């Protein structure tokens, strides 16, 4: 028996020296052994047909004593035949097979190259390069039942023009063996591919769910989807429900959007697609429509390369990413599924189911990462709030000074997020006193820092005023001095914040010798003056300027200039300074405490000492509040003339 690996020339030598019967017998024995070899190749675990196709071709040519030939494998998705083995070993382009040609190929066990059926003439015209290179005489379609698997093309037969009957039977058997090998290879490849996909699907879920950074989760989701679907591109777009827009979060490869011709807005990652009802776009690109449809309808969508303007002409498949509550978090897109050999093929129904399953896991991962991020931000905010609270508490005096002839009591109670309430009682070198109460807009660190700025500015201005001999000031000079201070504080706060950052501020200059209280209101709640006889008055109600820091000084002058006024205090008079946390306290029925209740409560306790009034008013507010939640700090400053 001949060694099948020996060159064909040995068989030729034998042909010359032996009788025909002996030659036939030897070739039959050789063929039988080669068939056994084929069988062994098939079951040896060398499942990849492309890899072993050269062996199949060599055995076929050797058995039939033919110099040249080729084996072609059919790819149903690409509808073409690939030359997987050829003698001579050259590279050939895939040959397209039309559906009607496929039917014709299935009908014929053998086709002579010189006399093809009418229905296959076009096919053979497309195969000319291969036919001419190999000098193909005979084609043998490879099939199992009605499944077309490929073809064998055989060149010139050695020392004869046609194959004998027994050779044709042998060729039929060889072709059948090769068909089985291709089918087996396809089956194994399919199993391997499915095994890979199922494993990747099972593996990717816990992996991506462990990623706590939204950016890392987005990257992994896209890359896993690309790998899972044998795709060459992918993208994750997440919804911004407020803006009704799909925003690009990650694209693979990085330069995916380089060939995009979609005219739309962009974010840091390059693409934003609005999907709101009121944003119709004339002649809108199909790929954009598909993505909008996926996010709005919640069903998968496909787009052919010729209609893809998003990613530069790719075959796209997109699925919605569902959230826990059934809302759509975004869209996962894969593009250009590849086959062995680099051919781009269509995504199948199975692919769609697979990507849809993966998108559900991706939804959990994305939500996990988003929740983690929100928790982190909340923790950071909490830490910031605590720091801000410390700053704020440090700015409010622990104890208030004794003012001769007066009683002072203060109360600050944080309720909810850190606000910017502030009060102070500052002794002046002249023996006079500066009393201030303020409410800085906003919450958190910014509010606390703005409050610190205000306090620092106030103390600085009052120190500067030290040089002024207050005794020399008449009342109008004092008015001007306080108004100037307000303008300086306004300028200071305006420079350090934005329009949203401002402070309501009420300042009182107390001369305990004359009992004259000179006041200035910059948009603060007017303090309440309760006279001993029960009559009352709101201070700074009529001459109030706008809050500090809201507008630049030149605008303040034109809108509402800061103006001071004064009031003469008498024994038993009480002034209740407060922030809006008092009058805007709500009860369980959503009623506000409001100024009227403050007046009534103040009247009821006006004869108490300042500390007693503070306690009484606080209790009154708390009693009104009951079980209701509060979100603003509560601040009171009581000044009582003994």
């Amino acid at each position: 028996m001949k060694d099948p690996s020996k060159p064909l020339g040995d068989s030729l030598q034998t042909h010359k020296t032996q009788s025909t019967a002996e030659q036939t017998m030897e070739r039959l024995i050789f063929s039988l052994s080669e068939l056994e070899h084929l069988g062994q190749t098939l079951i040896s675990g060398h499942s990849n047909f492309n890899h072993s196709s050269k062996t199949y071709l060599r055995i076929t040519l050797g058995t039939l004593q033919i110099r040249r030939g080729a084996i072609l494998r059919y790819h149903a998705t690409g509808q073409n035949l690939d030359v997987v083995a050829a003698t001579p070993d050259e590279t050939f382009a895939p040959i397209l097979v039309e559906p009607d040609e496929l039917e014709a190929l299935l009908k014929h066990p053998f086709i002579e190259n010189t006399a093809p059926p009418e229905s296959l003439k076009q096919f053979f015209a497309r195969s000319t390069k291969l036919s001419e290179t190999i000098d193909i005489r005979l084609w043998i379609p490879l099939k199992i039942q009605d499944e077309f698997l490929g073809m064998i093309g055989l060149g010139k037969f050695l020392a004869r023009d046609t194959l004998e009957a027994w050779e044709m039977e042998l060729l039929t058997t060889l072709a059948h063996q090769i068909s089985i090998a291709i089918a087996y290879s396809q089956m194994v490849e399919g199993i391997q591919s499915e095994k890979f996909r199922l494993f990747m699907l099972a593996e990717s879920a816990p992996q991506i769910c462990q990623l706590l950074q939204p950016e890392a989760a987005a990257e992994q989701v896209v890359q896993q989807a690309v790998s899972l679907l044998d795709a060459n591109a992918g993208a994750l777009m997440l919804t911004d429900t407020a803006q009704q827009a799909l925003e690009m979060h990650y694209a693979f490869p990085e330069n995916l959007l380089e060939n995009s011709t979609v005219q739309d807005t962009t974010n840091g990652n390059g693409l934003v697609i609005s999907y709101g009802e009121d944003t119709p776009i004339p002649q809108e690109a199909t790929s954009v429509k598909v993505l909008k449809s996926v996010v709005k309808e919640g069903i998968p969508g496909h787009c052919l390369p010729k209609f893809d303007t998003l990613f530069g002409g790719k075959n796209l498949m997109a699925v919605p990413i569902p959230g826990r509550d059934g809302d759509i978090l975004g869209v996962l897109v894969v593009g250009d599924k590849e086959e062995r050999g680099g051919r781009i093929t269509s995504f199948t129904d199975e692919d769609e189911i697979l990507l849809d399953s993966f998108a559900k896991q991706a939804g959990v991962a994305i939500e996990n990462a988003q929740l983690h991020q929100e928790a982190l931000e909340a923790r950071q905010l909490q830490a910031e709030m605590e720091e801000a609270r410390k700053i704020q508490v440090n700015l409010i005096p622990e104890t208030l000074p004794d003012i001769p002839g007066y009683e002072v009591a203060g109360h600050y109670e944080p309720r909810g997020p850190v606000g910017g309430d502030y009060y102070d009682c500052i002794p002046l070198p002249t023996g006079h006193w500066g009393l201030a109460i303020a409410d800085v807009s906003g919450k958190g660190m910014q509010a606390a820092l703005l409050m610190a700025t205000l306090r620092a500015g106030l103390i600085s201005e009052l120190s500067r005023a030290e040089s002024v001999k207050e005794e020399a000031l008449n009342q109008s000079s004092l008015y001007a001095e306080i108004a100037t201070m307000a303008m300086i504080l306004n300028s200071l706060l305006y420079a350090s914040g934005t329009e949203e950052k401002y402070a309501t501020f009420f300042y009182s200059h107390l001369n305990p010798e004359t009992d004259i209280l000179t006041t200035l209101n910059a948009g603060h709640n007017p303090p309440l003056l309760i006279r001993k006889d029960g009559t009352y008055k709101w201070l700074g109600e009529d001459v109030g300027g706008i809050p500090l820091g809201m507008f630049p000084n030149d605008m303040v002058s034109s809108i509402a200039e800061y103006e001071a006024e004064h009031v003469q205090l008498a024994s038993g008079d009480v002034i209740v300074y407060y922030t809006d946390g008092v009058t805007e306290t709500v009860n369980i029925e959503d009623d506000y405490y409001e100024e009227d209740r403050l007046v009534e409560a103040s009247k009821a306790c006006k004869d108490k000492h300042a500390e007693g009034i503070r306690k009484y008013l606080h209790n009154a507010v708390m009693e009104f509040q009951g079980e209701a939640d509060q979100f603003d700090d509560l601040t009171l400053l009581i000044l009582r003339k003994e």
Partner: protein
Amino acid sequence: MNKFDIQVRESKEHAIIETAGYLNDALGEKLSEKAQELIQNGYTLLVINLEQTTLINSIGISILIEIIEALDEREGTLNFCGLSATQERTFRMMAIAKYAGIFPDEESAIANL
């Protein structure tokens, strides 16, 4: 080394192929070509370093299997290194680990050829 690239380092006894980028059909074919070339040149001890290849699809896997088969015919040895934990689990599940060694780094992969 650029992305989507292959580097080959040859020594007297063995050769190391290093890949970077997505191991799909395009990169896989390049890898296969290099491996076949080395095998044709008589190398039967190969190391494939996948440290810079974080993404592999099923075609990449089938190409790796082919390289294992080609080397097996020559009774050669193939060792992998630089695999991520997921890749290692994939290789074990796809039975690649049955026919090729998996090692954490080049040094140990070479030592076990």
